[in-house]
């Protein structure tokens, strides 16, 4: 099968040619890349190929089985939609990094060994950082900086885990790992960070709302879902994930209810949705894994749709806060319709895509007799509808009229949203094709009377609660504020750390500067120039007996270098490297 080019390479190499082209040619070229990748995918048989020998290890760029294929398909489909949505953006930085990013996600999906996995993993982190930087505002720069720091930390955890794993097992190939020993824990933490498992989640709600309008679409689809893929590959059936996942579905919805920035609401609901997937991976039965994979598939589409429709609002009006928006259905009816389709899909309404996938995970929890988990997941399902299903469209397109009058976004954006919306409905109406490509044979019927009525009751009475809470004046006011999350620890805590380090290390620095850099060389300088009088001065100082000599001038050495503290980045990197060293030396 070596006649085909790996799909990841199509994106990564293709990205390099984008800046060379202009106008329609460029648009056509970018749209052809995912089509080519999809054609390649369709023709890829199962097996392991594209093996390159490197330093006595085999790099496997093509580990193709049912699990990796599903993610391969959806990553290519969403890349096509994302590229179409971003087609009119005149910024090569965004195009190139988005394509690299998609290539990285496909690379992670199909790599069969840890070396190539790690390379693509880092490519994901770096290329997505540029999608935040490309917003080119002060806040986005700061958010991008925090984002890359967090991902460097996660990447180093993964790398340390990989080293221990290779040391123990003697091979770079991997499939199921399971939690045993320090190496697997480090790998687990590395993946968990990218999957935004609390308390390692705050980078997501911090960074995604700061990304560019089009960049956020790619980000919502790729980083967390490639982590879901990897988790499903390496840690299925890990009981810890059931509880972590259940917590992950519930915790973010409280934040989402309070949040004012619409895209941050979506970021929180993204964490909540990945929670369902983590729970499914933790349960680990065939039904649960099928549910997880299909939910990832559907989730990528409706989350991209939601980020596109709210992104369109941001693009057309420059505003994205609940407090600033409202009444936009009047001038953006199509965008509004697409947003509602996305909202209905994430809420898992019957005939919308979430319904046919999420219910598999919840059923799997019921089959496993996990009562508490089942109740939490149902609670979270109602909660999702509350914030993502109602709050997002209501405060953007309805609610109080903000007075904003605008237009629909450009045709390519509408088209991209239209395709995603069509797929959201089509998958739900005809779930067969999706069920056919899942890792295990599917024996699941989503549309039973009890399930449809039960789900509709859960959602509609959740809506009734929203309605009555608003009318009774109990609904929390939308306000411009920050809600503290675990990023406090590195945003404020980091500053405290910096302050302490500044006082301690710079204190040492200043002392060293006074004694070693100034006093001693100054005196030695004097000594070498006027040895006799210097010694006499010393004698005088020590004994207190006077000679008539000029006063000793120790400030002869000019200011050599600035002794300002080095960047925190360097310091943090050093700390990480040191930890890595400790792990490697003492534990491996």
């Amino acid at each position, binding site marked *: 099968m070596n006649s085909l080019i790996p799909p990841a390479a199509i994106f990564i190499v293709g990205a390099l040619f984008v800046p060379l082209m202009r106008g329609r040619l460029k648009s056509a070229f970018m749209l052809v890349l995912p089509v080519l990748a999809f054609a390649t995918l369709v023709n890829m048989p199962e097996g392991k190929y594209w093996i390159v020998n490197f330093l006595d290890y085999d790099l496997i760029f093509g580990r193709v089985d049912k699990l990796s294929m599903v993610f391969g398909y959806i990553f290519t489909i969403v890349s096509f939609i994302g590229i179409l949505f971003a087609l009119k953006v005149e910024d090569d930085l965004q195009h190139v990094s988005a394509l690299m990013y998609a290539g990285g996600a496909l690379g992670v999906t199909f790599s069969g060994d840890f070396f190539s996995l790690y390379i693509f993993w880092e490519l994901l982190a770096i290329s997505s950082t540029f999608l935040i930087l490309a917003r080119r505002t002060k806040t986005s720069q700061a958010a991008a900086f925090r984002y890359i720091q967090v991902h460097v930390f996660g990447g180093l955890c993964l790398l340390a885990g990989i080293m221990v794993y290779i040391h123990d097992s003697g091979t770079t190939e991997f499939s199921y790992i399971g939690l045993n020993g320090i190496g697997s824990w480090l790998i687990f933490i590395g993946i968990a960070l990218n999957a935004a498992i609390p308390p390692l989640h705050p980078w997501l709600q911090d960074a995604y709302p700061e990304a560019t309008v089009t960049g956020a679409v790619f980000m919502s689809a790729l980083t967390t879902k490639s982590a879901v893929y990897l988790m499903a590959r390496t840690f299925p059936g890990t009981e810890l994930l059931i509880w972590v996942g259940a917590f992950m579905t519930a915790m973010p919805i409280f934040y989402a209810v309070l949040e004012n920035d619409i895209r941050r609401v979506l970021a929180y609901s993204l964490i909540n949705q990945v929670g369902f997937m983590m729970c499914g991976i933790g349960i680990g039965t065939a039904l649960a894994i099928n549910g997880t994979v299909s939910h990832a598939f559907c989730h990528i589409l409706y989350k991209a749709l939601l980020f596109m429709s709210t992104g369109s609002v941001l693009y057309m009006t420059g505003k994205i806060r609940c407090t*600033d928006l409202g009444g936009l259905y009047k001038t953006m009816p199509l965008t509004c319709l697409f947003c509602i389709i996305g909202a209905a899909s994430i809420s898992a309404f019957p005939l919308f895509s979430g319904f046919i996938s999420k219910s598999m995970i919840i059923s799997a929890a019921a089959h496993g007799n996990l009562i508490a988990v089942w109740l939490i997941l149902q609670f979270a399902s109602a909660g999702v509808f509350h914030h993502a299903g109602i709050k997002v469209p209501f405060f953007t397109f309805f609610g109080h009229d903000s007075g904003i009058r605008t237009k629909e976004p450009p045709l390519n954006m509408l088209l991209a949203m239209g395709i995603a919306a069509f797929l959201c409905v089509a998958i739900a109406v005809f779930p067969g094709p999706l069920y056919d490509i899942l890792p295990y044979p599917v024996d699941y019927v989503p549309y039973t009377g009890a399930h449809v009525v039960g789900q509709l009751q859960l959602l509609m009475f959740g809506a009734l609660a929203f309605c009555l809470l608003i009318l009774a004046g109990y609904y929390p006011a*939308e306000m411009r504020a920050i809600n503290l999350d675990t990023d406090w620890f590195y945003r404020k805590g980091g500053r405290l750390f910096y302050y302490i380090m500044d006082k301690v290390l710079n204190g040492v620095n200043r002392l060293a500067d006074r004694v070693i850099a100034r006093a001693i060389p100054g005196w030695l300088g004097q000594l070498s120039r006027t040895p006799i009088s210097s010694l006499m001065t010393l004698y005088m100082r020590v004994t207190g007996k006077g000679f008539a000599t000029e006063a000793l001038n120790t400030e002869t050495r000019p200011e050599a270098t600035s002794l300002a503290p080095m960047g925190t980045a360097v310091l943090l990197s050093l700390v990480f490297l040191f930890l890595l060293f400790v792990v490697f030396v003492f534990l491996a």
Partner: protein
Amino acid sequence: MSEGEGKEKMILSHEPVPGYRKVFHIVLLVAVLYLGIIFLRPFL
């Protein structure tokens, strides 16, 4: 924020509509009681 930037709304609160508080309280009470019965029934 100074008042000069009054164009950007700082808070969007939801004023109660008369009568709905009562409706809400009644519905909530009924729902909680019924849910309590459902959950506790196996133990009674």
